[in-house]
């Protein structure tokens, strides 16, 4: 009985992750439960809802395995700090596992900059993330970059917490990729 409950919760989490992954730009999904093994296929013959699962090589799988598709930056900076390096290293691992997946790194800036400078700053950040991935074994030809400047924030506040979330580079695996 306890086992069934755990399974149900896990399925719910996976559905939530899958729904989340359809948003663009992707937001941080809830961290996957680490101690649980991959879900078993539903027993044959059972009826009810069609569940979803994370397919290997998919965007949801990338986010789950790398821990995050997003790295953050300090104000007016494109330095890849230790926390960002750890995430990008996992992203690079995943990308090496799925060599046919091409990604786009989106660079973003917070609202506290002028529009054109922020476009350039976002491009710098996207390239900083790309360079790290390339230095960790991902072919440069698999990574395109785009800057959105301050045009597409994820956090809507006008405070330091929101700005910190918006100064980011997001590695986007194509849907169905």
């Amino acid at each position, binding site marked *: 009985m306890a086992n069934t409950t755990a399974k149900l919760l896990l399925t719910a989490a996976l559905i939530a992750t899958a729904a989340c992954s359809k948003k663009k730009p992707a937001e941080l999904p809830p961290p996957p439960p680490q101690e649980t093994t991959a879900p078993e296929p539903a027993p044959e013959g059972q009826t009810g809802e069609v569940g979803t699962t994370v397919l290997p090589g998919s965007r949801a799988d990338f986010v789950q395995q790398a821990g995050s598709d997003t790295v953050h930056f300090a104000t007016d900076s494109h330095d890849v700090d230790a926390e960002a390096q750890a995430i990008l290293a996992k992203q690079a691992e995943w990308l090496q596992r799925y060599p046919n997946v091409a990604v786009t790194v989106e660079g973003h800036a917070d609202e*506290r900059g002028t529009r*054109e400078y922020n*476009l*350039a700053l976002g491009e*710098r950040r996207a390239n900083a993330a790309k360079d790290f991935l390339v230095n960790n074994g991902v072919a440069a030809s698999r990574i395109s970059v*785009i800057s959105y400047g301050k*045009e597409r924030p994820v956090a809507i*506040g006008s405070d330091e917490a929101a700005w910190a979330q918006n100064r980011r580079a997001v590695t986007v695996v194509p849907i169905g990729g």
Partner: protein
Amino acid sequence: MRWAAAFLGAVIAFAAPVHAQIEVDVVGGISAPMPIAIPVMPTPAQAGTPAGDTGSLGARVAEVITNDLRNSGLFRPLAESALRPVTFPQVTAPDFAGWGTTGAQALVQGFVQANGDGTLTVGCYLYDVFARSELTRQGFVVRPADWRRAAHKCSDTVYTRLSGEGPYFDSQIVYVSETGPKQHRTKRLAIMDQDGANHRFITNGQSIVLTPRFAPNQQTLVFMSFENDRPRVYVYDVGSGRKRLVVDQPNMTFAPRFSPDGRYIVFSMAVNGNTDIYRVPASGGGATRLTSSPGIDTAASYSPDGSKIVFESDRSGGQQLYVMNADGSNQQRISFGGGRYATPVWSPRGDLIAFTRIGGGFAVGIMSPDGSGEKILTNGWQDEGPSWSPNGRVIMFFRTAQGSGKADLWSVDLTGVNERRVPTPLDGSDPAWGPLRP
């Protein structure tokens, strides 16, 4: 567009030059706005036109002039209730005694007449009430649909005669109309008259569009679009709706501006995290690289004689303003105040550079091209992206609100006192003031 502006030859003779009994001070900012009367313009004969009958047009023309002059900050138009009715014969023979009791120093009279060929003539007369003298007169012949342009031309006539500054009311704005949630704003290019009238959208909002600018001929725009997820600068023909890439290559291009003669476009291109400034013939062709510092060089703006370019660069660590020759040589930093400096725009008069200063907040300011005489004009949560009026005496910019992220358009004159919101149907950003219309 069919447009003819002319002195009304036989009907209206050139006004003899008169010593200015009255004048207004554009940059001093100390004198109070001049009281001015702008009564309804009569018509010699009531006649219907596609824009309404000539009688109602006389009232609407006076209203447009009233708003123009009030918005300039230099004039205080009399309230409608203080105005006196004007008959057609009085247009050239004002009731100075009557107007003298209203407190108005200046008087703008005129008429609206339907012509046999389907055009309208708008007569525009400026009088000094106390000296009881005519200061200037001018007549404008327009299609009925362009009646507002005749009104703006009359405003320009009055403004120019009394301030000694160049005209600017008969001009257009191209800007980015915004709507939708902060995370996903829908942005559309739009063009409108300087006073917000005749608003029309240019793009449909499917792609993010940014930073439009008019070419000197007003028929061509440059702007940045995220079409096909490829952020690039496009050259757009307003008449045909056709557009093309400014340069076709794999990197992001942005921050486009025309040269004053319209022959070149300067823009920025980001390559592997490094942004430099380039120049390309407006008719197409290969790009010439003008800067090569390891940093972000962007927001280039030509001096009105085309010999120099002011731009921003973070080569010193933060955004600062630099001036270089138009070929990229002799790059010199000109901003040394506190904070960072961005989005420099050279005044069409050449005497000033407007910019965004980023200190505690974002403010719009001006300085001389050598960096001296800095003056901050605005104070909002985030004021950004100045653009000059054609006469170099008014600046339009956009102000973004804290929290909501909603932006709208504002204008401010060089005193910094006369700050006004520019009406737009939705939110607005990235305004660019076009040249004076011919």
